[in-house]
Structures are given as C-alpha cells and as structure tokens.
C-alpha cells in the first residue's frame, strides 16, 4: 500500500502527493535528457569506483558537460559531490543553477523552483586550492560526512585536477577511495593546442592515467558546433547516443 494512504490525515497527504509529483517531474526530465541511458533513463554509465573523463581545450565546455552529468545523477536521486580546484562555491553554484534552468526551460518543466529545491539537497560542493588538494584530506572530509550521516556521494565530480603535474599514484588512490565509498568519479581534463598525442591517440598528459578510466569523452569545436566524441570506452560501458553540445546554451543535445 502506498505510504500516502497510510498517513492520509490532514497535511501529510498533501505533502506526499507533492513529493510524488516531483518524482514524476524528475523522471520526465531524465527520460527527455539525451544523457540518459536505457529506456527509462535509469542506467548508470559507470560502476562504483569507475572513472569517466571529459577532455577538451579551455573554454569549450568541459565544466558544462560534467555539471550536466551531475544534474542527471541528482535527478536520479543520487548524491553528487562536486570538487572544484579552481572555482569558488558561488561560481560552481551558478553553473548548476544556470544549466538546470536551461534544461528545465528546454523540456518545459513546470514548478522549476520546487524541483530545484528538491534536487539541491543531493549536491555538495567542495573547493580546494589546487595545491591544497590531497587524497588523504579528501578521505578525511568524506569520512567525516559519511560517518555522521551528513552526505554520502554516489558520484564525485572533480573539476580542475592537474593531470600534467599529478602522479599516477594519486589517481590510483582516488580510485580506491571512490570504490570504498561506492562512488564513481568524473574528471575534467584540459588539453592544449600543441599537446602531443600518444600512440593510442590520447593527449600525452592523460594517456599515462588512461588505464584507470572506463570512458573518456572529447569535446571538439567544429565550426560553430561542439561535437562530443568517445575517445576511449572499455567494454561493458554503454556507448550511448551520438551527442553534441549546443554552443549557445551549453546543453547536451542529440546529434541530428
């Protein structure tokens, strides 16, 4: 029997009906969202401990893409920990607010504010100065939150990680940290115009760590368009649909 009927007195019913409506709105948005996999949009691209990467040159839309991946997870009621190593909390918040607003507008979602308030509790932003970021520190912070029942992430987004300077060990530690918390992780990887490519066609700074990644997308500006191509995909990870980034709204759209 649905909970709504068990607690059918007075305001309780009102509240639960509203909750149910919000769930419907979320589902609607997930299915319409081109990032979604599977028929009901419920499938995850990565398993716990899985790594995903978004590569592109500066200003093409890496952050926009990972924020949309995060928003899709939040709509699926999954907790997202967004770690930014460059931007302050306010700026990261703006990215989310802006892209969610555009997403809701594109798919004509009603009650945007209510939906936003509902999914907001599924996101936590942490910012570190690049130099101050370390895996033990992150582990300490995460344990603090998980042990106190404050927040337990299912998806971790790391924006601004310095692949050129980081050691492979740090990424390996991050991977085991993610696995132990049952979370997958998405990274943004900046590439450079003159960067050399390794034999497997991956940028040199990234190729050393590529073995740890299950999927890697590349954003490339082609004329006035931004194409999203898959650079690397291990077997078992769904390939998804052909996608591009609308350069005006920075929203992911399906390739036409």
């Amino acid at each position, binding site marked *: 029997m649905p909970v709504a009927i068990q607690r059918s007195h*007075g305001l309780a019913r009102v509240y639960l009906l509203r909750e149910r409506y919000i769930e419907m709105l979320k589902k609607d948005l997930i299915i319409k969202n081109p990032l979604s996999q599977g028929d009901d949009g419920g499938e995850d691209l990565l398993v716990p401990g899985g790594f995903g990467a978004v590569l592109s040159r500066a200003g093409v839309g890496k952050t926009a893409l990972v924020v949309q991946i995060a928003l899709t997870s939040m709509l699926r009621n999954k907790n997202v920990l967004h770690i930014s190593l460059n931007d302050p909390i306010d700026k990261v918040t703006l990215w989310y607010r802006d892209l969610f607003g555009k997403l809701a507008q594109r798919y004509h979602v009603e009650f945007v504010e209510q939906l936003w308030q509902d999914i907001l509790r599924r996101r*936590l932003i*942490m*910012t570190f100065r690049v130099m101050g970021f370390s895996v033990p520190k992150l582990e*300490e912070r995460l344990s603090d939150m998980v042990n*106190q029942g*404050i927040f337990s992430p299912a998806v971790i987004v790391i924006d601004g990680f310095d692949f050129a300077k980081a050691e492979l060990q740090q990424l390996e530690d991050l991977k085991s940290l993610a696995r132990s918390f049952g979370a997958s992780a998405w990274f943004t990887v900046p590439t450079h115009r003159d960067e050399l490519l390794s034999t497997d066609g991956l940028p040199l700074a990234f190729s050393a760590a590529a073995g740890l990644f299950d999927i890697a997308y590349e954003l490339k500006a082609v004329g006035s368009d931004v194409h999203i191509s898959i650079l690397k995909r291990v077997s078992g990870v769904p390939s998804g649909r052909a996608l591009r980034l609308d350069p005006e709204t920075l929203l992911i759209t399906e390739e036409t």
Partner: protein
Amino acid sequence: MIRDITKVRNIGISAHIDSGKTTLTERILFYTKRIHAIHDVKGKDGVGATMDSMDLEKERGITITSAATYCQWLGHEINIIDTPGHVDFTVEVERSLRVLDGAILVLCAVGGVQSQSITVDTQMKRYGVPCIAFVNKCDRNGANPLRVTEQLRSKLGHNAVALQLPIGLEHSFRGVVDVLSMTAYTFEGDFGEEVRQIDIPAEMKAEAQRQREKVIDAASLFSDELTEAILEEREISNDLIIEALRTGTLARKITPVLMGSAYKNKGIQILLDAVTRYLPAPCDVDNQAVDLDNNNAPVKLSGNPDEPIVSLAFKLEDGLYGQLTYIRVYQGTVAKGATVVNSRTGRKIKIGRVVRMHADQMEDIDSIPAGYIGALFGIECASGDTFASQEVNYAMTAMHVPEPVISLAIIPKDNKSQINMSKALNRFTKEDPTFRTKVDDETSETIIEGMGELHLEIYVERMRREYGCEVTTGTPRVAYRETITQRADFNYTHKKQTGGSGQYGRVAGYIEPFPDGDFEFVNEIRGGVIPTQFIPACEKGFKSAIVKGPLLEFPITGIRAVINDGAFHSVDSSDMAFQAAAAGAFREVFGKAKPVIHEPIMKVAVETPSDFHGAVMGLLNQRRGMILGAQDEGLFSVIESQVPLAEMFGFSTVLRSATQGQAQFTMEFAQYRQVPQSVAEELTAKAAKQKRSAA
C-alpha cells in the same frame, strides 16, 4: 570647510566583521590629526575606539550604528561613514552606501574574501559605489595579501590590481613597495606616523617591476594616451597611470588594491593618498531623484550648490538635545534659516542648527553645500526622508529595506520601564527601518521584530542602558508564513437577519498561488453582479483575512484572490456585508487550497579551523541545515549552508564550545521555504495548544 567640490570625498569603510574597519578608521583619524591618541577597539586602556561611541559598541568590540566623521588629507576633505560589520545591521550598511560616493573595502589578509565581504560587495554593486580594496592584518600569521587580491578576482569578479607589494609578512611585515613610484615605504615612530622612503629591497626589485607592468597593462584599458605611450615605448609618467586607474575605478572596472596593517600602524597614510587619488568626488557621480509632480519621472541632480535644495536624511540619532538628523546634500545648500519641505509628509521645516559630526562630538557650521554630509538638529522626520526646496517636489529613490524575520515579546518590569520603553521603541523604529514593533492583539504583549537574534538583543540592551528600561524577554519567535499550493474555488454567501437592518453579500471566485508577491486582488466581475462600490470592501475583506492564517496565526502571503461572480441585495447589501462575505469566503476556501507553512531560511557561513571541519558540519546538519559547500583555504575552511532560522537560536554558544572558540559565523536571510511535514505538524499542534491555553 573646503569649498572646492573636487577635493571632497564621501567614503565608507565596508568589510566583514572583525576585519579591522574601526581600527582602520581610528588610525585615519589619528594621522589626519582629528584625534590625538589611538585607542584600540578592545584596548586595555578601556577608552575604546573613537568611532564606537556607544558604550555597548565599546564593550562588545563591534560597531553598531555608523557614526559619521570627517578629516582632511593633502588638501582634501574626507567624510567617513563607519559602517557596521555584522549582517544583522545590514540596513545601516545599505543606508550608508546610498549616500557615499566611494568606499574602502577592507579585507583580512588571512581570511581573505569572507562571506560578509560578498554581501557588502553586492550592496556596493547595487548602488554603483566605486571602491578601492585595503588588505589589512598583513602582520598576522598566515597573511597573504596577493592571495586575497586573487580572491577579489575569482570570488567577487573584481578586476583587482595590487598597487603594492608587502615587504615581509606576518611578524616580519615592515612596510610596502609602491609599484607606481617604485619606492619602498616603512612606517616608524610609536604610532607609525613617520613614513620613511627606503630603497626597494634588492630581492624584490624584479617582482616589483613585473607588478608595475601588470598595473600599467590593466590601467591602459582606460586611457588612450597611456596605450599610445606603451606602444611608442615612451616613458610613462605616474600621473598618467594614476589618471587611467582613476577612470577605471570610477567606472567600477578596476579595483586598486593596497595593503598594510592598521593595528601595527602600517600603510594607512598611503591608503589615504589612494582615497584622494582614485575615489570619486561628489561631482564625479551622477545622482538621481524622482519628480513626484511628474509621475515619479527620474531627474538628474546637478550638484550645483546654488540650485534648489535636494537632500536625504539617511540616519537619525536621538541625543540629549533632541533628534540629530544626518543628511547628505545632493543639490543646493542647506543653510541655517532656510526652509525646506519634507517630501514624504509635505511639512515645511525651518533649518535651525547645522552641525558637522565627528563620532559623538559636533562642530557648528553655517551651511552644508551640495556634495557634503552633515547633520541637522531639532528636525522631526524618519530615516530615508527627502528634504527639498519648496519649488521642487523631488524625492530620492527609496532604499531597499528587508522584511524582519524574527520577533520577540518584551514585558517591562515596572511602570517606569513601561514609559521609557515606549520612548525607546519610538526612537529605535524611527532610526532603523528593519526594527519594528507592534502590540499583540490577544496577549497585549509588545512584540519587537528585527533581522536576527543579535539585532534584537542589542536593542534590548540599549533600552536598558540608554533609557534605564528593564524588560523581560520571551523566547524569540520565527516569522513563519502561511501560503497555499493550489487553486481552489469559493462561493460564499453572507446573510444575517437578526434584528435591525439585514446583511447580505455573495462572493464567488477562486484563490491561487501568487509567487511574485504577497497578495493580489483581481476583480473579474461582469455585468454588475456586485456593484462597483462594494468591490473595495471585498478586497478589504480578503486583506483582513490574510493577516492571520488559520494554521499558526502568521500572515498569509503569496495569494491571488479573484472574484468573478456574486450577488447583492438592494437593501441589505453594504460595505460591511461584502467585507464579511469576502473574509468568510477566504476562511472557507483556504483549507481547500492545500495550505503550507513557510519558514525563513538563513544563509549561514561558518569559518572554522580545518581541524573542526567535521564537527561544524555535524552541528549544521543537526539543525536541519543543508550544507551547500565547503571551501578549503588551507589552515581553515568555510562551510556554507542554509539553515532554518528556527534552528539557529543559541548557535553561537554551541559553535564556540565545539570549536574551542576558534570558529565564527555569519548569518543572513536567504529565502522562505516550506517546512518539512513533521515540523509543520509539530508547529500546528503547538499553536493550537497555545490558542487553547490563551482561551
């Protein structure tokens, strides 16, 4: 008084709490010879800083009301408004910004851009106030002024350029290198009054040169002449750079950053030079008023002292000799004996005593010309009123005043206190638009309302100290609101025929959520089914019904009431009957429209040493807080969260004990949000119980 308007600066000093604003002001007054000794905010001599003239301010080490003062530097007259740093007193900050032409944004070299700095910066943007930044406390452990400059760029979006480099840092901070003149300065003497020019330390020469180039590069955007000089590789004069920096600063497109340590008396004199160089004179700023005779059309004020007077009362103080009104004159000259009109009340006022304020001392003057700040004696008015000459009917635009979010019942202890309490409340409400007072109809208790626990606490304390009025206070009450979540139709007939003339009125229509405002009444009556003369009565009926909601007896907001049908009786219908019909209809339909309770949610930012990061998160979480993010700044972190105000009572004590007194927090209103079901049930039950016991 200097009569050359280009040599006048009306500035404010804005910052996060405990960044050292008052200490900085104290040093400025000392170096400009307005005071002859320095007293620290919480100094051992017990005198307190000059600007903190209220006893309470001295005791708590915070500045509560902004005192105005003036000083002279390099032939310039600088009027300073010292503004409060605590968020509860934001309206004071906003009021000051409204009348200022420029500001010094004080930042802590350790804490950097903190939450309150962001609030203050938003306010500066709202009023278009150009600013220069001063990175204070360079002598503290962990000080890094260049990181703070970077934060000004990344967190506040300023085009910040450091005009100086620190010579040494923390305990070895000695002075600064000015990269424009390529000179190093140290500050000697007991109070740093002796500014000594020294050679730039050899190890800093290259860095200073690089920084100079950065400054020139940034300034070149604002001067064609400077750009040409760079391209032609001519020698670049300091004046040219200063002129370009000034143009950029006035347009709020560049923020010069200076550094020092007010407490250690370092860097203040150069900051004063910068105030005269980069901040605007009154004639550099466009001020607008609205013409009340011309449908509130905006009018540009000329700033000419010979034209009709337009001035704004931005602050009131009640002193021994009556009310002291701080004014800023925008046009004309307010002189002794002149007659002006208060454009809000239409009342004529004859100007009596005109004074200039220096914290709590004053100096009599003859007139206040356009562009200046001064004070008037013996004038009855409210804060925010405009005084204008009789020939113009202008008003300065209204300031943004937030709604109070917390209330407290106060009961005077004896009859004497009762009399003094009304005097005190009368004064406080006039001085501070965010502080309100009312009498509860049912309990007959006096209720005071404000912007936070500390805000109300300070007023209760001031009542005791300044008016000898002892009051007992109730528990603070959160200003909940009730609203509806869906449309519901009504059709209500009010009929009464029990002796005397009858009453009859029928109203039909619907109510629906109105997210854009508190209340809207829409009349869609066609064909005169309710005669036009009764429509206002219907509106009045709805308005009377939304004053107290049925759930918690808090105001109902966010509602649109539409009437589209009804009926009347040629004899029995009256204003009163339709008023009762509308009120009855509302009571009947409200429950059908799925009512909910909204509560004020506060944006709470806690700065804590990183060791207590987890403990602070736990504290916030226990209080139904939603943690938005955590910013790691090395030795300490800032945790940003949204917490219901109802859960924030006594937080400062808990935070202090959980962090060994090392964490501090700021809190400001963020939004109203629906309370969770379990809490709503609890609140409703509590309200019902109270109602029963009152009956």
